[in-house]
């Protein structure tokens, strides 16, 4: 697989073309706005959290294929999950992008999210994949800032 093929895998291209849970919840209990000032990626994430479980999640906005696929895959991974699990997934996901030390077990836990591992070879694009996860981290933090920037 060429570097480009490892980056733009079918699954990523599909989620870019038809992003899942693409929209804005109304009402919602948690919110964050993630922006990447350098490239203009801009997403809003809305959540409905009940008894520390994310029962629904949507994201909307505009950006590159990597950021959009990452947002789409993220919503699928977090809906129905306890907040503590989501934080663990987020940490694992960022670990995958930023280091080389993911174990087999950790990769298993990430499931489909591991498709974004190819982004690691493109340092300029890591922030694209990370953006919605930074936003979810912000939305779920007690001191939510409403806008989070990756730069």
């Amino acid at each position, binding site marked *: 697989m060429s*570097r*480009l093929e490892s980056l*733009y895998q079918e699954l990523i291209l599909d989620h870019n*073309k038809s992003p899942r849970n693409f929209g804005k919840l109304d009402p919602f209990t948690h919110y964050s706005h993630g922006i990447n000032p350098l490239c*203009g990626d801009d997403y809003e994430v809305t959540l409905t959290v009940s008894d520390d479980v994310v029962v629904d999640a949507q994201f909307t906005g505009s*950006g590159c*294929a990597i950021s959009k696929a990452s947002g789409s895959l993220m919503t699928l991974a977090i809906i129905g999950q306890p907040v503590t699990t989501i934080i663990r997934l987020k940490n694992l996901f960022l670990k995958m992008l930023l280091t080389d030390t993911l174990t087999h077990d950790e990769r298993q836990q990430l499931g489909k999210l591991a498709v974004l591992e190819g982004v690691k070879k493109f340092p300029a694009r890591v922030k694209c994949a990370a953006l919605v996860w930074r936003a979810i981290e912000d939305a779920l933090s007690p001191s939510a800032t409403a806008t989070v920037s990756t730069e």
Partner: protein
Amino acid sequence: MEQGGVAGIRNQFPVLGRQVNDHPLVYLDSGATTQKPRRVIDRMTQCLTRDYATVHRGVYSMSQESTEACERVRHLVASFVNARSVNEVVFTSGTTESLNLIATILGRGYLKSGDEILITQMEHHANIVPWQEVAKSVGARLKVAPIDSSGDIRLDEFNSLVTDTTKVVAFTHVSNVLGTVNPVEDLVRIAKNVGAIVVVDGAQGIAHRPVDVRKMGCDFYCFSAHKAYGPTGVGVLVGRYDLLTQLPPYKFGGDMIETVTFDGSTYALPPAKFEAGTPPIVEIIGLGEAIQFLIDVGWHALLAHEHQLISYLMNQLSTIPGIQLIGTPREKSAAVSFVMSGVHPHDVGTILDQEGVAVRVGHHCAQPLMGVYNVPATIRASLGVYNNYQDIDRLIEALLTVRKYFS
């Protein structure tokens, strides 16, 4: 493209021989910064290895020589842009500092509450934000002249926005996104009907169009060396001498003073008045060599080369399905922006990079202009004197690769 003054010119740029991601480099980001010819590299190396000494202060021979070498560059710049005198040429760190300098001193010594500053929709952030700050600090109003869908300033609107309260008009010579070459003389004439001071951002103009500040009639013209085959870290503010004399200094320190006592100081005459501190000596020498390089290639060859390549690039782009050009002005210089349907510019940039093709993707420090065209970002291919037809063919091939992934 082997004709006139550009024949064989590619070989003068060592960096163009390198590979990027296993492909020969195709450099199409000269609008951001140009690559450097061997003679500029060699001249700066010679300065560092043989000639380097401070300017203005030393009585020793090397300092005298260094001072004279920098002053020769000042003379060369003055003649290159047809300034009225060599004392109208102020060395700065680049276009951004030149624009900040002039905006700041106009704020301190000229603009008043209620005055208006007029800019245009196609400005780079460096010709927007300093004026916003000045407007805020003096209570002036910032107005924005609109462009039409091709990327030309709407002269009727511009005309009606220039009123008796307009004190400063600032606009770019050439747009870094649209490639628009503005009709500087027409715009200056309108601004001068009300006596406004005119500031021209020449960052994209200096290496692409002959500049004659007297013919243009502008009061200030700003540019950087690094977009004109010279080094980073040095630029120029060409300013009308009477205004430079009347306006207050910008930075304070050594070299810009006449006398200093603990009770107060008096200031040197322009241009020294605006050149506090040790200047970027090696970079000034590099700027001189870069300008001599442009003069040696000659405007006739530079313009013919650019015109041929731009026409070819625009034509070839139109053969790719789903490409929308951003900026089709009456006169277009070396920046060609476009978007591709169904693909974000950043994905295009990454794929092109894998093919060895360097372009700029993003908002190009012109976020308000992106808003005008309702796009978050564009892909921009910008040309330099070293580009050729093969570079454009490689760009087009790489764009077809993009289409394979994003059909």
